[in-house]
Structures are given as C-alpha cells and as structure tokens.
C-alpha cells in the first residue's frame, strides 16, 4: 500500500548551466541536473518551484522547448527577494527544483484550429513552450498569430527569437509597446488594439493569453467581440504559492487551486468570478 511516493515537497538539486540576461531585470536560467539524469519532461505552460538556498522558493514557469528534455529553462523577472537572489546566481551554483506542476496549454486540443497567442510583458515566457510546440507541429494548425505587448522596446523579451519568428512566413507576429523609445518604429499602444485586425478565424480559433490580469481581461473582451467563444480562450493565472501541490491553500482562486487546476484555465470555467475583485 505504501509505495514509496516521492515527497512532493522535497527539492532536487540542479546546477546553473547558463545565464542569459534578457532585459534589464529579466534573465533566463538554464539548469542541469546534478545526478546525470538530464531528463525533465514537461508540458507547455507548466511551472516549477525553484528554491534558492537560504532565501526561499517560488513558482516559475518553464520557458523552454518541451521537446527538448535535456535542459530546463526558466525566465524570471527580478522583482523581490527570491527572484533577486536568483539573479545573483552564477554558473555552477546550486538551485533546488520541484516540478513540473500544473495544467498546460491545450496544444493537442488546438490542432486543426487557428491559434492566437496574446502575451503581455513577461507573459511571453510561459507561452513560449506552446509556441515551440506549435511551430514544431506547424502543419497541424491553422493560422498562428502571436500578439505581443511590452512596456518599452527595451523590455521585449527573447528579442532575437521574436525577430526570427517574425521572419517566418507561417506565423504572424505583431509586437507593440506601451511607450516607444527611439528608434522604435513599430506599433505603439496596448496589445488588445491588435486583436481586431489579427488574421484568424474567430469561430475556429483557440486563444492562449498570458500577462497581467488586467491585460488578460481586456484581451478576453476583444476576443469575444470578434466572436471567439469562451471555451476556446485559455488564460494563465498567478497566485501566491507555497507548495504547488494543493496542500498550502494559498493559491485558491474561486473553487480552483491555481497550482493544480491551473495555472492554465479555460476561460469558460472561471468567467463567473474572473471579473470579481479580491477573489
């Protein structure tokens, strides 16, 4: 009966293999296992609990390519203590990892549909694995659209990669910034402004949205205006999380635990409280 279940609260030690500075406050860590078994299967949209020795543990989405199990990639913005300490890590330093946890972007269910990905700011990191997946299986999808909004041109995440996608003929990539800085010549304005003109068939579209809650709220409205139904809209939520396995209770959001029922939700099932305050 008592098959030795691994303790879900216990971290496994990984090592920082590479650090890439993405923007002034955002960085990507590539982690390798220290016990040689470099295999970390995960689904696009899932996250890990990352532990910095002596400081604490926080949820961070996996931002790498799900088809590549070899290394584990996370993109983090330094906003506070743990993320700040994480930014100080150097190659070879240890970090604790638990995961992967949570629900994922329904990339399988989206086959045959147009896919529109709307990302705001750092929200590009958690959807990047979905985009990787879709691009790997490009033939299975209809139109693929990435609408990405960033605060300023300097905050654009994965800049070179975004440019590469933009250069592809099989994806529509549109980037906008809230505030232009010289020499930005692209769109200026909120990301939702790009929705009305985006090339997808609303009745046949699956949407993945990731970004600040307020941005997701308006994105949903715009998508609905175009006729995308709520059951085909997916959002990724953030809540305080201490355990990521449903024991700590912190991440409750309505009837859901963001850690296990989310972070990715289909909008239809949460819409009746998504708009309410302080849920």
């Amino acid at each position, binding site marked *: 009966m008592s098959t030795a279940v691994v303790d879900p609260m216990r971290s496994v030690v990984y090592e920082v293999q590479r650090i890439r500075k993405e923007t002034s406050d955002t960085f990507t860590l590539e982690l390798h296992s220290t016990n040689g078994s470099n295999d970390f299967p995960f689904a696009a949209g899932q996250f890990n609990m990352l532990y910095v020795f*002596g*400081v*604490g543990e926080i949820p961070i989405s996996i931002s790498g390519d799900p088809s590549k199990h070899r290394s584990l990639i996370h993109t983090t913005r330094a906003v506070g*203590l743990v993320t*700040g*300490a994480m930014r100080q890590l150097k190659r070879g330093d240890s970090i604790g990892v638990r995961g992967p946890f949570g629900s994922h972007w329904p990339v399988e269910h989206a086959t045959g549909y147009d896919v529109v990905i709307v990302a705001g700011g750092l929200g590009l990191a958690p959807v990047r694995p979905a985009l990787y997946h879709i691009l790997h299986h490009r033939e299975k999808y209809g139109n693929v659209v990435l609408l990405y909004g960033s605060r300023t041109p300097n905050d654009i995440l994965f800049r070179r990669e975004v440019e590469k996608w933009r250069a592809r003929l099989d994806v529509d990539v549109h980037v906008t910034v809230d505030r232009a800085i010289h020499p930005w010549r692209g769109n200026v304005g909120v990301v939702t402004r790009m929705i009305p003109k985006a090339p997808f068939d609303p009745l046949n579209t699956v949407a993945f949205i990731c970004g600040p809650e307020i941005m997701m709220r308006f994105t949903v409205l715009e998508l609905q205006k175009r006729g995308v139904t709520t059951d085909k809209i997916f959002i990724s939520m953030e809540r305080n999380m201490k355990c990521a396995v449903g024991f700590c209770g912190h991440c409750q959001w309505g009837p859901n635990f963001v850690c296990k029922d989310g972070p990715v939700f289909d909008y239809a099932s949460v819409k009746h409280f998504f708009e309410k305050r302080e849920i």
Partner: protein
Amino acid sequence: MATKRKPKLAVWKFASCDGCQLSLLDCEDELLAVTDAIEIANFPEASRTIIKGPYDLSLVEGSITTPHDAERIHQVRRSSKFLVTIGACATAGGIQSLRNFSDVNTYISTVYATPDYISSLQKSTPIADHVFVDFELRGCPLNKYQLVEVISAFLNSRRPNVPPYSVCVECKQRETPCIMVAKGIPCMGPVTQAGCGAICPSYNRGCYGCFGPSEMPNTPSLSIWFEHLGMNRTDLVRTFRGFNAYAEAFRKESEAHEKHY
C-alpha cells in the same frame, strides 16, 4: 566564507530603557555565533571599541525626543546601509510617547524642580517619522529570537520571518485556549502583532499590546467586545494607550474613547 569581509554592525540608542539592545547580550547561546558572523563595530553598551562607519547593519533603539536626537538620527541613517529599528520605542515612540497626549511642559515641571535645564521635544516619535527605515522589529521588548532571525535574514539577504499577523496565531501555536473566550478576560491579542510567542494568555492574563498593532487591527470591533466584557471607557483608553500608544491604530482607538469622557 572566511574570505568574505564580515559585515559591520552598529547599535544606536535614543530614548529607551536599553532592554532591546540588552536582548542581544541576552542571546547567551547565539552571542558568540553572532559575533562570528558579524563584526560588532559600534555597540557602546557592550564595547569600548568604536570602529568608524559606514555600517552594513544598524540597529536603532529608542524614540526621538530631543532636538539633538532629531539631528543625530540623520547621521545614523547616512552611515548605515541597512537600518533596522528595534523595539516599541523606535517603531512607535514607546511608552514615553504618552507625553504626546498631554502638554510636555506640564510633564517637565512635574518631574523636575528646575525645568529650564530640560530640552525636550513636544512629542516622542518613532524613527521612521524621521528617516527611511529598512525594517521594523516590534516589541516592548523585542523578542531576542526575532532579533537573531532578523540578523540571520540580513546576512542571508532573505526576508525575516517576522509575520505581521495577530498574537492569536501564536496562542494557537502554543495551544493556549483563548482566555478571552474561556475566561472573559479582555485581551489585545487579536489586534496585536505576533512576536512575543503569546506569553500573556499562557499566564492567564490578557495581552497588553507590546508588539503594537497587527496588520489589520480592527480595534473598534474589539473595543465593543471589551465593553461587552465589562470594561469602562477610562480603561479602554488606558488599554490602547500603552507601550505602543502612538502607533496609529492604537492612538486613534484611544482617542475615540477619550472623546466620550
């Protein structure tokens, strides 16, 4: 570790009873470990040696009560990278802030035969009213384990585990049945910040608020309950006017009842 420069610690005193800084010396078990990890650079109560600033960590005890101290605290801030205020005096003005509710001049003449020698400000105010404070450690006196925790958190650049929730949480942790419920003894625990370990209820007395207001102190509701338990308004004023009398939530509550005298 050995190669790293030890951070420099300074301890400063303003108007206070010394109890909070004494807590550092009262850490009998941890003291030597503390001094291993951190260099005591300026701590007159413990040492004649004064090493020049700037200091990595300053602990500030006491409230500002004199014009001279109001100047001195700015010097302290300038020479400190990280400034932590310790105790009710430094975080809320302390018991001496009771003067803030009266005229300090009558106070002076009550105590001193020759009031002219006294130079004192009208109010006793917390350090944060004067300079930026990086962290406030509450308590009258502070809890020495929390002090070690703050130092330890500072050394590891993490957040100190000094939660702002109510004393009730600690009551439950130490399994003291609530004395307000079980004995009808008025207790400030629900509006007082945890930190002491809920000592008083475990000694059969109501909490009297050493650690100041908790994060969301619903003092009006508690006052109504205190009255329901038989407390009169004079005592209500006194209850909220203790060691953290000048902390906003407690100050407002005591003033609300004073009006009704």
